């Protein structure tokens, strides 16, 4: 009972300290509002303003029409270059796509042959190259078909494939990105807040003051866990309801209670990680260097930026031990696909389990570090 009270009072002190740190409060506020909005609506992997050039060796009406079929915003106004310039211009990174229309292209088509079109793709521009190449092809095919339709009978494909996107019918990328952005901010800020709370207390000598009082290391650490976790939880809730659901109009298919339960489990892990990093680094500067390495790894390997199944197999097994991966995964299930506890229990178990093991380890380390503080 006294232990619970201690944790409660220490936690309140923690909140008060945090609130008096204006820079940190502003940073948390920014990270969970504007930063998320910008990340969700900013750069997209969509093809936009792609650079394209044509080598027109046909000089026919059709080839002219094809060149005119590409225009902003998706493509830049195409340049026309000579065949000899292809290699140089692509080496210099001037164009992502160069389309070569061969001589006698139009007449071959009219004669019932299927002439070749060469499409040069700068395959080092991964994000846009593949989707962009598909656009180039479908735009070209449409035009060719329209052009021939004027003379030929209307043709119809024997089987049509209708692609329907579930869970995000308009493929609005801000839906996905906003949630990944929240997840990334939760990881970063929980670690920063908790770790900084440990280091600040040590650098200001207040930790020593706490230690001479009838308090245990466990109480001191748990107070930091709940206070900082609570701040992040509130910020997350505000961000989800105000920014994601209201401003960005992202629907929430599943149960809010379920998702926030998952967030709680994850916060447990992230605060434990913050205490761990705060304990092993001797100064704020070392803490800052460590954070960069840890947070980048946690975020990149979580599956938020690259789907986990695209990574090499051994890495996929490794990421199974990253709670951030399970967090991204169960968030998708709950928020977009409307899955229930049956669909996410394993992920919950993993996050909770890893969090618990890590918390116990961090506690042991924290207690030890206090014992040898000179």
């Amino acid at each position, binding site marked *: 009972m006294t232990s619970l009270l201690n944790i409660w009072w220490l936690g309140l002190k923690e909140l008060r300290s945090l609130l008096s740190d204006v820079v940190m409060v502003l940073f948390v506020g920014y990270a969970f509002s504007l930063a998320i909005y910008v990340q969700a609506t900013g750069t997209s*992997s969509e093809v936009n303003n792609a650079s394209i050039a044509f080598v027109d060796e046909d000089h026919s009406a059709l080839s002219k029409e094809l060149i005119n079929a590409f225009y902003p915003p998706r493509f830049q106004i195409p340049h026309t270059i000579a065949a000899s310039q292809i290699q140089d211009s692509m080496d210099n*990174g001037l164009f992502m796509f160069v389309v070569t229309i061969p001589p006698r292209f139009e007449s071959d088509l009219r004669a019932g042959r299927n002439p070749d079109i060469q499409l040069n793709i700068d395959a080092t521009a991964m994000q846009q190259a593949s989707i962009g190449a598909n656009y180039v*092809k479908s735009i070209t095919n449409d035009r060719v078909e329209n052009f021939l339709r004027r003379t030929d009978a209307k043709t119809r494909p*024997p089987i049509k494939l209708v692609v329907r996107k579930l869970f995000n019918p308009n493929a609005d990328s801000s839906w996905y990105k906003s949630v990944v952005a929240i997840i990334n901010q939760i990881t970063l800020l929980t670690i920063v807040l908790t770790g900084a709370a440990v280091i600040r207390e040590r650098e200001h*000598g207040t930790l020593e003051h706490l230690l001479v009082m009838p308090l245990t290391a466990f109480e001191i650490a748990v107070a930091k866990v709940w206070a900082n976790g609570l701040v992040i939880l509130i910020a997350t809730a505000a961000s989800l309801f105000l920014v994601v659901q209201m401003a960005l109009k992202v629907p929430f298919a599943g149960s809010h209670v379920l998702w926030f339960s998952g967030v709680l489990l994850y916060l447990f892990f992230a605060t434990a990680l913050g205490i761990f990093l705060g304990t092993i680094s001797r100064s704020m500067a*070392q*803490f800052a260097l460590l954070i960069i390495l840890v947070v980048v790894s946690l975020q990149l390997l979580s599956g938020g930026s690259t789907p986990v199944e695209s990574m090499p197999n051994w890495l996929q097994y490794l990421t199974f031990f990253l709670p951030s991966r399970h967090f991204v995964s169960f968030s998708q*299930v709950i928020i977009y696909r409307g899955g229930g506890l049956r669909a996410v229990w394993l992920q919950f178990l993993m996050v909770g389990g890893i969090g618990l093991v890590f918390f116990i380890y961090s506690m042991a380390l924290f207690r030890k570090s206090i014992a040898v503080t000179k």
Partner: protein
Amino acid sequence: MSTLASQTSAVAITRKPVVSIQGVTHHYGATRALDGISLDIPSGLMVGIVGPDGVGKSTLMALIAGSKKMQLGRVNVLGGDIGDVRHRRVVCPQIAYMPQGLGKNLYLELSVYDNVYFMAQLFGLSPAERPTKVRELLEATGLGPFADRPAGKLSGGMKQKVGLCGALVHEPDLLILDEPTTGVDPLSRQQFWTLIDDIRAGRPSMSVVISTAYMDEAQKWDWIVAMDAGRVLATGTPAELMERTGTSDLEKCFIALLPEEKRMGHTELIIPPRPAGKSEIAIDAKGLTRRFGSFTAVDQVTLSIERGEIFGFLGSNGCGKSTTMKMLTGLLPPTEGTATLFGQSVEAGSIEVRKRLGYMTQAFSLYGELTVRQNLVLDARLYHIPPEKAKARIQELVDKFGLGTHLDALAADLPMGLRQRLSLAVAVLHEPEILILDEPTSGVDPVARDSFWELLVDLSRKQGVTIFVTTHFMGEGMRCDRISLMHAGRVLACDDPQKLIEARGATNLEDAFIGYMEDAIAEAALKKDQTKEKSPSNISAAATTVSPSPHSTPSGLQLRLSRILAYTRNETVQIMRDPVRLAFAFVGSALMMLVFGFGITTDVEHIRYAAFDLDQSLESRTYLEEFAGSKRYFTTTAPVRSADEGLRRLQADDISMVLEIPPNFGRNFRKGAGPEVLAQVDGANTFRGETVGQYAEGVHNRMLKDPANGLQIGPKRYTAVFQDRYMYNPTFQSIYSIVPSVPALLLILIPAILMAVSIVREKELGSIINFYVTPTGRMEYLLGKQLPYIGISMINFFILAAMAVFLFGVPIKGSFMMLTLCTLLYVTATTGIGMLISTFTSSQVAAVFITAIVTIVPTIQFSGLLQPVSTLEGNARIVGMIWPTTYYMHASVGAFTKGLGAGLMVQDVIFLGCCIPVLWALSIFGLKKQEK
């Protein structure tokens, strides 16, 4: 010394001033540190600036040394205005400045010898005379045997000696020492002053200006400036000042000089004697020993303290006082020995023991961000004092300690004296039986110190609280009932202070302490049968042999080059001995290469899908079989039997697509009605959903064109056939584009952070003062610090390139030589970015985060990592065009994947080359040669 002192009073007025201060005022934000000071300091004397902490002594000394920028007023030093850059450049080799703080301007990772040698390099001693000069000084100060020890592993007194060697290496005419003996043990202090006297005897023209908070020290000096609250209270020889105020020592004299409202009706502290008769033993320790690894912090301490006694612990920084206290209170388990409190054994960490203890830690350790009241209330709660009682108790303490008017002020905003009283209030809030105070009064002015002691006396005599206090002020030691003198982990003597003095036949406690220390050292020496440190008499003999050698002046260019190399060597040694930064430099970048290389991929493969066949006709089966045949993209899983099951499996992320064939598909196909197939794609991750949809369409279209499978009917369609040419990356795997891009990101992030930290770290730790007060130019400083990081970054580049080739299997198809050249220019530019950021950041944390944001954002968004630069628009395009990474990215991807020859990278080389002088110029412009 004595001869000098006798001359001074007469001479002081007639001597030409070495420093002349006129109307100097200095502010830090709203705080006024110096308030219109005007003062002439006579030359050739030992001048003391005395006053408690925070009265502006350090600011004044830094202004005289030219290390701080003048705000208002004028200071003439050695015949010219020190605010004038030209004059500063001329006289700076004649001034030596040792800032406050033990070893503040030393490089803790460097050895003693290297530290002094570094200063010799900066002051332009020729390579031939440096080693002799450094050796000479080290021998003279008794540091000879410790030449190879890192400065960080020295005791406080020795650090100060190293600092002094560094200051004397160029034979200055004006020596400025800011609190050189604070926190140093009495023997080292005595040795230090003997050393200064000897040096002055050898160079009588040298002026020495020293600040101190120990009044008794200043008593022996030639001329005194007493300061308080940014003003000069009085100047003159100690004898004159004492005569004027009618006092017998300088401390009392200082109090008498204070303005009336400051004295607050100060009366001399009288400590009533303890009631006679034996009382119960409160603290009892037997043979306490504590070792940290091989280092023995506390060695066989035995003592017992009675209830109500004021027991003092005297010793220098790091002598084991705090460790002993922690063992007595059960905070730290002893390696050997036992400690009992009121007869009960102290179990390490026992909660019960802590309730009977009050503890006031060294330095201020309350929450500065909470108010006075909040701090008190928090402690009351943590000790579980019932709210009613707590309220009454807090009120009582607030009245008694005079905190009433400050209840709602933040603890951080209180003046020193009040903060100490608040700390004491917090420590006694729960009415402890034993009160432990770790250096409670350092940095507090004499008046506040006395009023603090009044509270202690009251607690001891009236309430029977046992008080255990550590201090390095001898005057405070005299006030204790008993004291124990501690040095190097051992208790040298323990008794009533007066008895200790009598036992040694000494004049005061300090002399008695020194006597005990010399005995201990002699004893230890006898045991070891060899002397490691020279005795003071030898020092003086050696010091006189420090001969002023004529400066041979090498040419300007040579000097500059030598200073650049001095900084390069210094920085290299530092980083080699800092495991965290070293690990970040090499392990960090290798780790990030792995994470980025494997973690970022845009390849979408092995998409799990399930068929949902509602038709079960020949045609539907053919269609599904054909679809299943495209193994590269799709992986077939068990078909679903109902729409519900399909949705559930999509929800659980078991599959990413359901391929649904409607009823009557076969019949409609045969009729030529163009039936539809529905692909339900998981669109939660939009990029992936998009790609899956396109792959499905691709497979579908290919099937329809293949005449072999019978899925074609009707007239043949004429269309263009695309011949895709995936240039540079025929298999179109993202690894070939990501892996060469990652070094471009890492070689800006890591070098820039390391560079920024290396400069800001010097600002934070204080060693940047060496740059302020030596003739080092800005370009020399920056270039010297940059070179090691360019080296580290190049090694990093080779590691990353090797990883790309051997681990990721991405071969280098283009010119590696040219890429190496580009890398050299690139890392010079990126360390330059770190340099530029360091000019406007003042803490290492800010430097790390700002550098990370400033480098990562444009690199990821605008340099072609995600989006080709050719597709950027507006401002993004402009940023992309001037950001160095854009060019290096082109070179790196070009050399690895595109197979570009040297000729095609020339424009990258030219641009990267142009960045470097621009960044240098901006950094030089931003780097200040003086502290603000």
